[in-house]
């Protein structure tokens, strides 16, 4: 494994409820970059992310994360995970939620305030999560992933349902984190977001349709619009 790779997936096969969700999937994610995991709903993005953070039962294949097999206890200190549905305690305030994660990860309250700043939720810190809007709740969930300054961030659709200004700010924050040397794997089912990423992984029905930078994907397909590019590449795959 080269030093510049944070995640290596080798011949991964995962079955959920008797159905093969990911079949013979191999890919890698470069360190210090924002990699977009794109594909329609049901393409296997969440399953792949669950496998990378070590909470998914894997049928066969191997996943190496930061040089260790996925799911190794040590990795739980180094990998931040944001689930697709906000996994926070609705009956606690934003700060109480984040302090719980901070205590587990052995970091102080100043880290909580930093993270609140990053997701632009400082003003809502003392609000009970159940009283927040869906988008605000998603940001609290994102904030839990940022606690403890993890080396690798696995974010499952962090920008879904957010307004355009906030989306732009978050993508900027992701790029800033990458500039600091963090690795980010960010999923989305919205092609428009692909241009915010350094690298792309296009997933469809559990298979990788295309990889490369947004420019590479445009060149492969001969299309400027990434939505169209995806369609062309899927059609090539089917033929």
């Amino acid at each position, binding site marked *: 494994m080269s030093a510049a790779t944070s995640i290596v997936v080798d011949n991964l096969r995962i079955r959920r409820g008797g159905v093969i969700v990911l079949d013979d999937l191999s890919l890698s994610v470069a360190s210090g970059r924002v990699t977009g995991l794109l594909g329609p709903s049901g393409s296997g993005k969440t399953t792949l992310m669950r496998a990378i953070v*070590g909470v998914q*039962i894997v049928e066969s294949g191997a996943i190496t994360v930061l040089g260790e097999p996925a799911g190794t206890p040590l990795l739980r200190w180094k990998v931040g995970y944001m689930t697709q549905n906000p*996994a926070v305690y609705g*009956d606690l305030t934003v700060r109480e939620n984040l302090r719980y994660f901070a*205590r*587990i*990860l052995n970091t102080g309250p100043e880290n909580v305030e930093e993270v609140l700043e990053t997701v632009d939720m400082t003003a809502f810190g003392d609000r009970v999560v159940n009283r927040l809007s869906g988008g605000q709740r998603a940001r609290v969930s994102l904030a839990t992933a940022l606690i403890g300054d993890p080396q690798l961030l696995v974010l499952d659709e962090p920008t879904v349902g957010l307004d355009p200004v906030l989306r732009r700010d978050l993508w900027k924050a992701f790029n800033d984190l990458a500039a600091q040397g963090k690795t980010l794997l960010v999923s989305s089912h919205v092609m428009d977001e692909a241009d915010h990423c350094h690298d792309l992984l296009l997933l469809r029905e559990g298979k990788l349709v295309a990889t490369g930078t947004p420019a590479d994907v445009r060149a492969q397909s001969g299309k400027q619009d990434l939505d169209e590019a995806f369609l062309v590449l899927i059609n090539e795959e089917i033929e």
Partner: protein
Amino acid sequence: MSFRATFATALRVLNQLRRDPRTLALLLFVPLALVFLLEQLFADRRQVFQQIGGPLLGLFPLIAMFLVTSITMLRERVSGTLERLMALPLAKFDILAGYGLAFALVAALQATLVSIVAFGFLGLHTQGPSWAVVLLAISNAILGMSLGLFVSAFARTEFQAIQFMPAFILPQILLCGLFTPRSQMAGWMRALSDVLPFTYAYDALHRATALGTFDGRFALDVSITLGVTVLALALGASTLRRRTG
């Protein structure tokens, strides 16, 4: 496992209770109302109140903690927070111990309050010391918590979890010896009560309150109660899966 993660979890669970003052009030004050009702019900038959008052004091926290834990843990499973915790440097034992610590504290408060009312104001008398009832109540609360934790794995909805109360707890209350001495039960009922943990929890309370005897049989009762608690916790831990399908 780590003390830090255990304490963090206990603190989080207590915070959740604090943020839900209605539940907390119900937990702490309903037993007071019930024990008052019981005293009034047997106002002209004091010996009945004296006989069942003590054991009931020690069983309230068991029932309350069973309910609270099964619902709270079900919520963790359904809402995705459990999956989230499994991706953190937190041992399963930290989660269980955190819950245990938080609920033991609530149970201690509940048992103390109801004991003050029953012993102090309602004239309840027991042969053994009243603190023995409080201690047994706390240990029973932890038993209730571990049973609730375990059965939460078999419920998909909060409706189902609530129905486990009549399904798991009521038969045990009927058969534990509180209503009819076990010696007067039909053979099959007695055999059934032999394998139910409530029987031993009740017997310990009965010995501490009605008889005031802390003999070998009392020690056996307490050991069995603690043993079942550990067993239920171990089974409960096995239902917390780091990886799921």
